[in-house]
């Protein structure tokens, strides 16, 4: 998948709306701040703060899309809203501050967390476009994440069966170089850049061994190679599907913390 495809919005219309709203928000700030000093505590500054806070709260409702995706027509509508409203919420928060750096510790935390949450959200968008395309284009095998360890066990058992009665050379090669990597799922970040990465290098020893065995054994080597290739594909699936699940660790706790601090911020504004 090319970078251009990854950057292309899934629903260009939603992207255009977000971009327009963000531009309007910045223009409002520019005009407003030129007329009178901009303050987050009153007037338009406060309005943008309220808007950003409300949007962040609505963003937290994303898990409520199930079971019927209401009020949107589909879960896809929900996700699109989640992504674009989240991005706009950050713009609204920045307009609220008047594009000035915070003065207090709470302000810094709020700015850092909202930026982090939006950035990790956008990272998630990128991963969710990049990884599925890589998996679909680069691999033949398709597997359900939770089943991959058991599928790997099955492959190893199949390889063991295949090697029963194999000649000395092949048997030694299998025991020393193949069985251990076949035994468990190997995760690697490298698959993120190249889903078939390292495959040729890993298969090279098989090709060499095939030259030293007789014609009868050669088919066995080819079958073993096919099992090994499948195992590498499962490794890639496990690594990348793991990343697709794991990135939420970067996004969700920060979003939760942001909600907490936002509540403190709103409460302190009312109180003081």
């Amino acid at each position, binding site marked *: 998948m090319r970078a251009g495809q990854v950057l292309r919005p*899934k629903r260009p219309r939603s992207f255009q709306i977000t971009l327009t709203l963000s531009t309007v928000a910045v223009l409002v700030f520019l005009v407003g701040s030129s007329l009178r000093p901009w303050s987050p505590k009153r007037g338009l500054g406060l309005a943008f703060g309220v808007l950003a806070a409300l949007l962040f709260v609505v963003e937290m409702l994303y898990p409520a*899309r*199930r*079971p*019927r*995706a209401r009020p949107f*027509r*589909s*879960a*896809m509508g*929900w*996700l699109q809203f989640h992504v674009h409203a989240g991005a706009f919420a950050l713009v609204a928060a920045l307009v609220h501050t008047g594009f000035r750096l915070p003065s207090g510790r709470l302000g810094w935390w709020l700015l850092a967390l909202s930026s982090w949450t939006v950035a990790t959200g956008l990272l998630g968008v990128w991963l*969710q*476009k990049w*990884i*599925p*395309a890589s*998996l*679909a*284009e680069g691999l*033949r095998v*398709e597997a*359900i*994440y939770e089943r991959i360890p058991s599928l790997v066990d099955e492959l190893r058992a199949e390889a063991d069966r295949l090697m029963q009665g194999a000649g000395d050379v092949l048997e030694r090669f299998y025991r020393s170089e193949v069985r251990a990597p076949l035994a468990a799922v190997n995760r690697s970040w490298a698959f993120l850049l190249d889903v078939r990465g390292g495959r040729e290098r890993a298969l090279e020893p098989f090709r060499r061994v095939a030259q030293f065995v007789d014609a009868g054994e050669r088919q066995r080597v080819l079958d073993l190679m096919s099992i090994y290739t499948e195992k590498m594909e499962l490794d890639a699936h496990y690594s990348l*599907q793991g990343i*697709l699940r794991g990135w939420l660790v970067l996004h969700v706790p920060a979003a939760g913390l942001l909600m907490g601090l936002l509540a403190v911020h709103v409460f302190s504004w009312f109180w003081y």
Partner: protein
Amino acid sequence: MASATQRAELLERHARRLRLMVPAEAADLRELPLFSGIPEKARDKVVEKVRRYVHKVELTAGETILREGDYSDSAFYVVAGSVEVVLASQAGRPDTLARVRGGAHVPPSPARPGAKADNLIGRGASLLGVAGDLAGERKQLGAGEIFGEMSALSRYPVSATVRAEGVVSLLQIRLPGLRLLTATSKEFKKFLDSRYRERSLALHLGSVELFSKLEASVIERLKQRAELVSFEPGQIVEQEGEQASAFYLVRGGFVKVSVAAGSSDLAVTYLRKGDYAGESALLVDQAWPFTLQALDHAELVKIGKAEFRELTARYPGLEDELWREAVARLKARAVALENPTQSEYVQMAMETGLIHGDSVLLIDLSTCTRCDDCVRGCADAHAGVPRFVREGQKYRNWLIPTACYQCTDPVCMMECPTGAITRAIGTLEVTINEKTCIGCGNCAERCPWGNIVMIETQERRSDGKLVELATKCDLCLTRPQGPACVQMCPHGSSVRISFKDLDRVTQLLR
């Protein structure tokens, strides 16, 4: 949930029915008039072959043999006694033609408030039963009569309920037996054809959208003059380049439509129940622009050139419609020749059996994040138990999960002992009623794609074992938003399609 007693009673009734079925003896069969059309020399061999598919059944008064709306793969020959045939009044049937949906997001069912006519695609392939001239009547069939053969051969729902009038002795002939008999005995074939012509052909012709505006008298004449033809799998119906002399209407099975391109053969589309072919050649009096080949046991109605011309002369509207169809077909032919990839999709669908499906779930793996929200959505819609697995065949970047295809000919519905698996006439969704399912597993065994799964429940049988019930995708029938697997996919990767909708297939799969 049905009470354990109810289910036990249904189970016992099924077991009793199975006990009543006894393999037929060759000596008994040989003497039956059913086999009289087979030449003396070949008769023993045919009887021996057919015997595997024939069982003797003895029933008592009031017992139901066939239920209206069910699918059946058997014909019943009355050996002794009589049966009562009860046909529902036509008033109880839907007044519009049932249509086959491609997208299947919004079915033409009152259960879905959002149903719109423009969501329906494909020609009016009627799923109506073949009630024939007997609608609203009760009829008695005695010894020597046969019933259920049309439903079994054409795979239409049974059009009447049949009950035993007293003690009745029947021969249940399964579909392979029926096919053997029709192939070996010309007289038997003639007998079946005459009955089909007499009872059902008029209704069948009238239910085809193309002929829906024809007057009864015209249909009647067509009924007398049309020829009924059967083709074995792989048999050529018409060869491209040969002079066209007939118009064909499909009454059962699937027919491949292809064009020759060099030494290879490009699939353009396929025909199924209610579809027709021949207009492209007959309207311009040219040779066949396509080859028609039976994909399975195909039953066709052949209308001669002269009758066809009479019809088009009498009904200009019909001719216009045929022209439109002819242009569309010739366009599809040109597209197939220009872009052989499109043909590959149809070919793949034929080879994998996807053509049988009216609503096949596909997942685009290049956008699917494997979040399983489709499965969760399905589980949410079905009391926590999903009706499909996100595993299955892979074609290019598409996954074809093990979810019910909602087949045009749902073989799973044949021989359900309690009628628990049903498809309401005029609708698409094949559903299982968990209250009357006894967990016999017939449907799961019959589904060629393994899309019906037996799931353990908390209910226990009298022997202490847990009751297993059949479950399958029902397209979320009661869900106004349509199938949850499609609606709840956050990336729009899940789609439901019919391979008959070639434009959409090409748009998606390219």
